[in-house]
């Protein structure tokens, strides 16, 4: 069957479809406001006119390409195209400022490739077994998974003072997440009668405002993104070797991304932050994190690309899409009469395996694209700001509108952009805020649903083995930075008394 699939795959039309899909995916992912979900959904009517396989290959390519593409503007301009790339921006942008943007892009390409390939391999080999594992996760586990993601807030702070501010930022995010329809009772909360707010504050416009628009406002005072002193390094197209020690982060990220991706729900953001957090804990140079750590980029990018293959495991085997992109992809499968389930791997096996194998090719395409184009992409960071700012702002406003065809969203993103400037100037963490906003609803729904399933008893959070395992990971992730910060502040006090 796999041989037949390969045969179907290595035709000029198929290869061309993968190539077009992946490149346009990279472009879509790179534009602020355009998402992979949107691109895949737009492709569905196009696939009517094509062979089902060709359509699937296009959609798969877009999915792979977009996840990687999101990292390019995150690194170069600190304007992440997707929430999953926020962690990448935290590390990548300082590297660009130091004139190492090209290197950061290369690391991102290699890490994305490894994460994507690893998870596709897992999808190919043991998809059905993993799907069973994914099903053991219920509402209590989703609540804890959201907590695990929120634990990442702690990793955004270095000392006691910043920790308090990061926690406050995260809390603001959680409070903003309250706006909208109560997931359990259906009551409206703080929507002020605006229909656009019934679903809560959409996080993509918020993300665009907080990162793209605020960053453009920030840049108005400078000539270009790269520091004057580092200009020369950016101009040189020399072949820099990848820094040592990042392979550990890449493998860590790939593994975490794949595992989290398998669980249905918005996985890529959680996966990127959890990998980033774990990589920081296990790094030999944790002091570099937040100031341009190659390990941080590697872990985050491997993590969010690991989700691609992972999210397709429950989509293809059970018909439960792992995230919104996979959901759109599922719609594309169904319209061609391909109903997920065991039949997909037997009756329609040739097509399914060809689709899975095409993801490998898509990964190779964006790797090559990323490696060869990195020095040229890096020059974007040298564009004079008087040309850069209008273009990025235009795309940002367009993207904020296009997400839900809503003008309210444009105002939301402008508001968040202004607020972000104030928060940033006063030392509050934007990453923590967006994390709270995205994970708040997941945590709330999980918590309330778990209590309903448990008939009101809190014991449901402590009696299930998966839940207990998650508790252990959360505590481990929280304890080490706490001790570090405590030690640091103690030392500082000592120095002060001596001084």
């Amino acid at each position, binding site marked *: 069957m796999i041989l037949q699939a390969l045969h179907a795959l290595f035709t000029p039309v198929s290869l061309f479809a993968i190539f077009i899909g992946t490149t346009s995916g990279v472009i879509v992912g790179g534009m602020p406001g355009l998402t992979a979900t949107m691109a*895949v*959904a*737009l492709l*569905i*009517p196009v696939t*009517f006119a094509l062979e089902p396989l060709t359509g699937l290959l296009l959609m798969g390519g877009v999915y792979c390409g977009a996840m990687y593409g999101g990292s390019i503007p995150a690194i170069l301009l600190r304007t992440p195209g997707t929430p999953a790339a926020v962690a990448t921006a935290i590390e990548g942008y300082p590297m660009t400022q130091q004139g190492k943007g090209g290197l950061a892009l290369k690391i991102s390409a290699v890490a994305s490739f490894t994460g994507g390939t690893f998870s596709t391999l897992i999808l190919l080999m043991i998809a059905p077994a993993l799907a069973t594992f*994914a*099903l*053991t*996760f*219920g*509402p209590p586990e989703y609540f804890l998974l959201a907590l695990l993601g929120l634990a990442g807030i702690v990793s955004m702070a270095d000392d006691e003072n910043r920790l308090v501010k990061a926690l406050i930022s995260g809390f603001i995010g959680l409070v903003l997440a309250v706006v909208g*329809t109560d*997931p*359990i*009772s*259906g*009551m*409206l909360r703080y929507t002020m009668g605006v*229909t*656009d707010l*019934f*679903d809560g504050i959409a996080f993509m416009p918020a993300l665009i405002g907080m990162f793209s628009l605020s960053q453009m406002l920030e840049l108005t005072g400078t000539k270009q993104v790269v520091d004057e002193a580092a200009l020369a390094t950016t101009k040189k197209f020399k072949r820099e070797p990848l820094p040592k020690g990042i392979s550990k982060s890449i493998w860590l990220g790939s593994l975490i991304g794949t595992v989290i991706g398998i669980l*249905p729900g918005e996985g890529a953001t959680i996966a990127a932050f959890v990998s980033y957090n774990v990589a920081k804990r296990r790094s030999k140079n944790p002091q570099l994190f937040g100031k341009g750590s190659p390990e941080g980029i590697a872990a985050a990018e491997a993590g969010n690309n690991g989700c691609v293959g992972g999210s397709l495991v*429950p989509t293809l085997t*059970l*018909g*439960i*899409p792992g995230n919104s992109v996979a*959901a*759109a*992809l*599922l*719609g*594309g499968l*169904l*319209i*061609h*009469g391909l*109903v*997920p*389930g*065991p*039949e997909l791997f037997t009756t329609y096996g040739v097509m399914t395996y060809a689709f899975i194998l095409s993801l490998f090719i898509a990964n190779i395409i964006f790797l090559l694209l990323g490696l060869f184009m990195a020095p040229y992409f890096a020059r974007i960071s040298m564009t004079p700001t008087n040309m850069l700012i209008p273009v990025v702002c235009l795309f940002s406003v367009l993207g904020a509108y296009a997400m*839900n*065809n*809503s003008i309210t969203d444009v105002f939301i993103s402008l508001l968040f952009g202004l607020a972000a400037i104030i928060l940033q100037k006063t030392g509050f963490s934007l990453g923590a805020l967006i994390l709270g906003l995205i994970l708040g609803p997941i945590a709330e*729904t999980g918590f309330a*649903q778990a209590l*309903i*399933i448990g*008939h009101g008893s809190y014991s449901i959070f402590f009696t299930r083995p998966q839940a207990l395992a998650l508790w252990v990971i959360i505590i481990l992730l929280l304890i080490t930075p706490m001790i570090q910060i405590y030690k640091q502040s103690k030392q500082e006090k000592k120095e002060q008394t001596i001084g």
Partner: protein
Amino acid sequence: MRKVLLLAMAMALFFPLNALASYPEKPITIIVPSKAGGSTDTSARLFIKAAKKYWPKAEFVVKDVSGSGGLKGFEEIARAKPDGYTIGMVFTTQIVAHIVSKRAHYTLDSFHIIGNAMQDPLIVAVPENSPIKNLKDFIKSAKAKSMTAAVNGIGSDDFVAAKKFEQQTGVKFNLLPTKGSTEQKAMILGSHIDASFMNLSQLQAQHKAGKARIIAILADKRSEILPDVKTAAEQGYPVSMTATRGFVAPAGISKDIAAKLDDLLQKVNKDPGFIADTDKGVLFRLPMTGPEYLAYLKKLQAETQKFYDQNPW
């Protein structure tokens, strides 16, 4: 001469007969109040494919306006200019549930109802390892202990179906609102809940594969794709509930255009190509004319109102 010209212009303004004769002469936008790639979106696209056969010169554009349980899209249709160039899809029970909960800026009178095309009957499903095999077991065990049953949000078709069961049998479910069918599916397959009220299309493949069990279909007759599943009425509980997906236009649209659109939908509903396409995509047809669908919606609104008054959300 000038007077004649003026008269002609006035005529053209007040009696746009020429424009009518050639309707449609520009693209018709179909507002789909859900996400691209979902079943309502798919229905609209299959409709367009078939409609082109009867109106070869017409152009159709799908505009997905998702959010707030369809409310955003429904409102956009109601607000649209009634010139025949913006029509839309509605789905139940959400279209009436928003009116009942006083959140909608529209009523059923805001629409010209073109008719219905699709449906997705409700089912009662239990995990594959559950001892419950039929509705009798189900009601018996619901009386014995509090059973957790998942529904898709408050006021949805699943919710109304569950409430109908409660009303008829006197049981009380531990209702678990979810974010949608994806979550319900995952919880049934992972045995996290005792039962789920959901749509047939969402679980039929899993039932066939033996990974979940559909114990009843809440329709008047059995489904062709799952002939082994008994209807609720056959098992002694006459509860019927389905999610319909129909077409509407904003109210105030001219009678001739309305008649043309009504006619088009009826033709598409009978089109062999359309029937074949929907079968392939596991979508279920429920053709209804405009007046039939309006009567259906009014009845559903009265029913939903009853549940809302007992327990508002």
